[in-house]
């Protein structure tokens, strides 16, 4: 038996974490953002509970502003997986037509995603929420636990996190507390891509390069995905070959110029990439430390 490869190890560790999370949970749920990390996590969940089905529903915190292809992909995947899909829309945002153009990226994201997530977790009385976040994504994530305790108001206190030793996770909860569990903690972006390739996992086609209608806003390439997009006077979308490294609300997600239309090409491109995957996210750059603050307020 040869030594396990890095991907084998990561896969096995994630399966172990998924099983630990579910063993102690009363009402587990998996946060499904439709992105590649969610796709990898769902694949791992199917493996972890084989020959049964993963014992939890998928939860999508919708904003009404995500790429059209994401919605199509989500519905196909949900029905194929046979898992219940819960789609939550923050009713306040629906009522007040919260959108990135009038309210800015920070308010838009906070109300739809952070508030929406808290509402959905409360409504479902979920005690354990699985998510595909990785420690290599952002500096403040590097210190996140695999099993991260949140207070009754979903607050994350970086100074009150439980020490995690070996693979001996404390999954017990006092009343009102909940857990966010991150089975992909030890994966890097490249690991995820290599795993998607090795396992033949389906991902949203937006990750592959193809000519798309693009406007350039201060160096960020934004795709005009529907007619709600507010063009500046005289601004005309241009067809540019681009792909996306992360997905979210289309007016807030920057594309990268690319011709990588296969997984092998994406991996090749990433190996020489000179920018991080969060480069394309408008929200992360609003203010220094913005990711950390969002997490303290209850975001993933």
């Amino acid at each position, binding site marked *: 038996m040869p030594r396990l490869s890095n991907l084998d190890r990561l896969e096995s560790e994630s399966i172990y974490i998924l099983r630990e999370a579910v063993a102690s949970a009363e009402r587990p749920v998996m946060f499904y953002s439709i992105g590649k990390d969610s796709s990898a996590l769902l694949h791992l969940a199917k493996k972890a509970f*084989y*020959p049964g089905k993963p014992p939890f529903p998928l939860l999508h915190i919708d904003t009404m502003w995500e790429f059209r292809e994401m919605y199509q992909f989500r519905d196909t995947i949900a029905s194929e997986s046979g898992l219940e899909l819960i789609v939550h829309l923050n009713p306040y945002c629906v009522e007040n037509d919260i959108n990135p153009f009038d309210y800015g990226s920070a308010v838009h994201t906070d109300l739809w995603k952070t508030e929406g997530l808290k509402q959905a977790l409360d409504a479902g009385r979920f005690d354990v929420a699985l998510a595909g976040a990785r420690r290599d994504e952002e500096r403040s994530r590097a*210190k996140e636990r695999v099993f991260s305790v949140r207070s009754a108001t979903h607050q994350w206190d970086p100074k009150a996190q439980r020490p995690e030793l070996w693979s*001996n996770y404390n999954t017990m909860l*006092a009343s009102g*507390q909940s857990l966010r569990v991150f089975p992909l903690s*030890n994966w*890097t972006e490249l690991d995820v891509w290599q795993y998607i390739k090795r396992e033949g996992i389906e991902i949203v086609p937006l990750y592959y390069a193809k000519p798309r209608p693009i406007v350039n806003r201060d160096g960020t390439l934004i795709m005009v995905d529907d007619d709600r997009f507010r063009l500046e006077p005289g601004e005309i979308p241009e067809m540019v070959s681009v792909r996306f490294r992360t997905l979210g609300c289309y007016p807030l997600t920057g594309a990268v110029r690319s011709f990588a239309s296969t997984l092998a090409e994406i991996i090749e491109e990433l*190996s020489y990439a000179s920018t991080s995957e969060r480069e394309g996210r408008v929200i992360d750059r609003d203010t220094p430390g913005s990711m950390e603050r969002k997490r303290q307020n209850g975001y993933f």
Partner: protein
Amino acid sequence: MLDDRGEKDLLRLITCGSVDDGKSTLIGRLLYDTQLVYSDTLEQLEQDSKRHGTRGGDVDFALLVDGLAAEREQGITIDVAYRFFATKRREFIVADTPGHEQYTRNMATGASTADLALILVDATKGVLTQTKRHSFIVKLLGIKRVVLVINKLDLVGYSQEVFEAIRQAYDTFSTELSLKNVNYIPISALLGDNLTLRSENLSWYKGPTLLEYLETVLVGDDNDELPFRMPIQNVFRPNSNFRGFAGAIFQGKIKPKDSLLILPSMQRATVKEIVTADGNLSEASSGQSVVLTLEEERDISRGDLLVATDNPPQIADRFRATLVWMSDQEMLPGRPYLLKIGTRVVPVSFESPRYEVNINTLEHLAARTLGLNSIGVCHGALGSAVALEPYTKSRELGGFIVIDRVTLETLAAGMIDFGLRRSDNIHHQDFEVTRDARARLFRHKSAVVWFTGLSGAGKSTIANLLERKLYLHGIHTYVLDGDNVRSGLNKDLGFTDADRVENIRRVAEVSKLMVDAGLLVLVSFISPFRAERELARGMLAEGDFIEVFVDLALNVAEARDPKGLYKKARAGQLPHFTGIDSPYETPESPDIHINSESLAPETAAEQIFQVLLDKGIIT
């Protein structure tokens, strides 16, 4: 620099060093030199370097790895962070842990998953107390390989003599500590000498660069050769025909038809299939997550351990372990906690530490408790026997965490030194005259009526009235009263939290003996902590423990103040007085709740008498 096969292996390492040893600079530089710093991150780094940097506007690599805003402001790292980098040959996960002394807990956490430790030494300072402390924790957590990275060689003119002197000093120390496989590498993290590239400045050094070493060092992963061990995580029953046991193989390998032992029940079983989503396997080995089905029908649940039939681990209900205490809440001997080992959770309590280790001098000190960041050796007793192994044999089956029963926080990590089976050394003597026989002679059953409540609530008054009634009814009774026991059996104990726990533990043990002797025992103790009342309940058989909460509001008790104690406590003459400067934890579901403000003591005694009749303890 990266390939696309994903078939590289993984090295997990920990970096430890004192505050100014240049640890963050080292890691930042490794990330930078292996080109894992993206241009947008670099741009932010340049911005940050201007705002917070200590390099006068030059790029400060330390800022790459100092994660949280709070630490960026303070210029220190306050928690364990995990960093990732990769070369053509290997992927690396670095646990970055802070170097100040109050953070033993973080270092132990980072060390628990590391294959290798980089211990940094500042060449201008040499081997410091902190270096020794870090080395001790590295040894304690069982890291097999150590590199002493001698940094800042640029500040000593790249002197070979300085390097050699530090090497010799550490060699003596590490031999004392029986730390094996130590390597020495000179570098300058700031200038990049001998990190990823050889340096002219260090031409006298013939060994590998730090990165070369990390890329090629053999990390002994011989877990496959050890006997099979797999803790059960879940039992899968997706349909009536399938019953599988899910878990990760911690060590060894397994094939269909292999014989197994199920612990702690000691049943035998035979492997039928190794099930995975990618098809059934003909063999699985350490590190793999699988589902096993068995030929036989066996009662197995989460927390059980499947092991090879030869060389099974010990099953023990007592053990000796080294504890690293990680909570502000100090360890109280005798207090019931939970212990998680493998996937099993069991009740545990610890005796007073045999000794605490002074991690600066490695001296053994006497200690009665363990506080935050202290390390001590204790004997522990488990609520039921579990399979365990010495930590030096198995990190996963010898390492455990200690969890608070109420807050459910992780309080400590422990490493088993050895297990003891209670029956191995104390043989319980069975006598022919049993508790049942005594109950027939006395014509009533035995039990404990446990009164808890604030001082002055009326516990002893009610206990006294109740005992008189019981005596007239022909019942054999005895009252254990707080004040009386404290003047005899427990006169060596004071009123600190630790002593209060021991006070109650002894009274619980005495009541247990008295119950066995056939007596109806009335215990009248403030017993302020929920955990110890639960401990007493747990020591007795189901139904033998009747908790009576004598409930009186603090202001009323204080107004009554029959012994004048509250007055003294308020005047500061009685420290640790319950209700004043020491907490009283109200019972959540007492068997009998007496409202002492509205209920006369006679009526209360009558009520309890009635309950004893209802329960059939007396007739």
